[in-house]
């Protein structure tokens, strides 16, 4: 079979795919010929910052990720910690910043959908969701629209899916005016001996596509690349992804039902750069090749090209490697739940990632190198100097403490968040033992007596002042919130939101925050088991405040020993603990 190569790969096209000239040189060297447009798209997806962590990888490696409680650290869809009795907690946090700025409702909703998929892909039933939100100045003309859209989107998705949204945090600052942050976290529970991973195994096993159909949602790359594909380019313009929480709920139930049997060898959700990332990851992790036949992919729109199918970000989709012989069993379950089910490929022994469409080979690439040979940069960075210490006497005392208190309570930074969390179903499943508004949320596991405590925290202005101290402080605050309800902190996930890492002072913020986080995690035996990095959060050259959001999970052995925030009676002593 030939590899049709009818679109000339120009430097402009390479640039539109976010690849630097030297990165393109590396591609040419790797494959020994000019890539097809589909292959270029695949490289752009695999080698972008989001998938490859090319600017952060060297530093992420310095974080502590181990401990007796850790079952799975970073590198899988979500991290896993042991919670005893043969059960484990599965959790991760992820950003959906840019899409939420473009279309707040759908952007935030699909962010929630993505992180829930990460958790149930591993065989866990989600029991709680949290979110960390940053908006611009409350008086900025766009802020109101963004806040109401994001909150409705998070609620709309989580409520319909059926997971309680039990916690989160919200800040306002002008530095987020043109670049809001929407970080979503999900926590699930699985049986420790029934956890599923992404690595494929076995040659010739069927690769199965599950969930919703593929459309031209959020296709990366470039307007130009898609223009080349047809006359009516107007209609093929990349579009915003719309979430379908109903389909996701069906996907959850169908996946968990199938996982009850021995049918599933490996499973991976299709997140950003959908089919490409999921298929490559499953193959590469299992030291296997993958062959996909795109003619079999369920499509929502007519005449989709291989390029479009490989880069589509349509939501509510999964890829699975099935144990041979279980095809009919699996198909019956997915049809019962009215979901698409299609065998779209198989594993091979040649370590190639081969994509066929309409009788042609559209891509034929070395699968390991797609991931392993991705660029990795040790970017130059400058340390953020410690700010000068502020003497207490330099700060004027307020005229009236009572007035100051009222002013603080009324400020957008400190006022009640009830307006937000009342729009989230925080009670569904009947296990919410501590509702939003306290230190950490507490969610019981099944009928108890065990419960998980969880919290997300970071104070960006501390991180701006001194990233290392801010990183440390964020981890410590999560740890305190979890201990304050009487739980034992287990591990954290994180979402590192920063500006352009190609600027040394921004890179310095990232490095500083990671150093601080690492130090705090080591001191507290509080390892990092999953996380996500979101860079290039800037508008017109001005970066957001450095925002390493930390999400922590702790274990409460007995719900009867939970502590709550409210004073319990009159005439009791109030103690202040700490330095």
């Amino acid at each position, binding site marked *: 079979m030939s590899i049709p190569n009818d679109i000339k790969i120009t430097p402009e096209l390479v640039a539109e795919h976010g690849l630097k000239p030297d990165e393109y040189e590396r591609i040419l060297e790797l494959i020994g010929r000019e890539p097809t447009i589909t292959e270029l798209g695949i490289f752009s997806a695999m080698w972008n910052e989001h998938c490859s962590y090319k600017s952060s990888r060297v530093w992420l490696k310095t974080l502590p990720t181990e401990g007796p409680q850790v079952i799975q650290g970073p590198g899988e869809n979500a991290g896993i910690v042991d919670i005893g009795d043969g059960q484990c907690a599965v959790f991760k946090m992820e950003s959906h910043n840019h899409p939420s700025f473009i279309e707040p409702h759908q952007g935030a909703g699909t962010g929630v959908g993505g992180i829930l998929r990460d958790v149930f892909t591993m065989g866990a039933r989600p029991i709680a969701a949290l979110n960390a939100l940053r908006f611009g100045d409350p008086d900025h003309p766009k802020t109101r629209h963004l806040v109401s859209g994001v909150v409705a989107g998070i609620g709309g998705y989580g409520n319909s899916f059926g997971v309680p949204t039990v916690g989160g945090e919200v800040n306002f600052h002008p530095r987020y005016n043109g670049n809001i942050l929407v970080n979503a976290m999900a926590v699930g529970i699985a049986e420790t001996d029934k956890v599923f991973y992404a690595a494929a195994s076995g040659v010739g096993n069927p690769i199965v596509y599950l969930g*919703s159909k593929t*459309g031209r*949602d959020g296709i990366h790359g470039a307007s130009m690349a898609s223009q080349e594909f047809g006359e009516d380019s107007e209609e093929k313009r990349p*579009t*915003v*992804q719309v979430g379908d929480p109903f*389909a996701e709920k069906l996907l959850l139930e169908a996946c968990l039902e199938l996982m009850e049997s021995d049918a599933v060898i490996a499973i991976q959700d299709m997140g950003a750069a959908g089919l490409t990332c999921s298929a490559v990851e499953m193959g590469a992790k299992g030291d296997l090749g993958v062959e996909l036949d795109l003619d079999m992919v369920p499509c*929502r729109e007519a005449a989709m090209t291989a390029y479009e199918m490989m880069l589509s970000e349509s939501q509510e989709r999964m890829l699975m490697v099935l144990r041979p012989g279980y095809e009919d069993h699996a198909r019956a379950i997915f049809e019962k739940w009215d979901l698409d089910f299609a065998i779209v490929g198989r594993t091979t022994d040649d370590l190639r990632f081969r994509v066929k469409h309409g009788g042609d080979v559209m891509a034929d690439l070395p699968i390991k190198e797609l991931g392993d040979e991705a660029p990795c940069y040790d970017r130059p960075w400058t340390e953020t100097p410690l700010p000068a210490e502020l003497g207490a006497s330099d700060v004027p005392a307020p005229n009236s403490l009572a007035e100051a208190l009222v002013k603080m309570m009324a400020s957008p930074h400190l006022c009640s968040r009830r307006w937000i969390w009342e729009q989230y179903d925080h009670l569904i499943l009947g296990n919410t033992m501590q509702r939003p508004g306290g230190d950490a949320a507490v969610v019981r596991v099944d009928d108890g007596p065990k419960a998980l405590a969880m919290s997300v925290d970071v104070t960006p202005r501390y991180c701006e002042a001194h990233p290392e101290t801010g990183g440390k402080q964020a981890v410590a605050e999560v740890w305190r919130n979890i201990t304050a309800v009487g739980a034992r902190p287990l591990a954290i996930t994180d979402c590192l939101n920063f500006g352009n890492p190609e600027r040394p002072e921004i890179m310095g913020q990232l490095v500083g925050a990671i150093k601080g986080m690492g130090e705090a995690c080591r001191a507290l035996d509080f390892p990092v088991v999953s996380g996500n990095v979101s860079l290039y959060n800037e508008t017109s050259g001005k970066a957001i405040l450095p925002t390493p959001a930390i999400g922590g999970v702790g274990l409460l052995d007995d719900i009867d020993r939970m502590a709550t925030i409210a004073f319990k009676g009159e005439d009791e002593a109030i103690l202040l603990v700490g330095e």
Partner: protein
Amino acid sequence: MKANVTITLKKGVLDPQGKAIEGALHSLGFDGVENVRQGKLIELELPETDREAARAQVEAMCEKLLANTVIESYRIDLV
């Protein structure tokens, strides 16, 4: 003057509602139905009597509030 604004999802944008309605129609026995899409209709009345001016006003309402132009397109009918 009265105006009817119809707001529909742009082509290519996923329409989960349309999808669900189509499925429900099929299971009720309306087998052949396809491409079901759901949109919104907004009826309103304006004091403006000049057609051109009225249209311009409704257009401004659509851009500012009624339609989410990232994913939706709209059509205005004056009646």
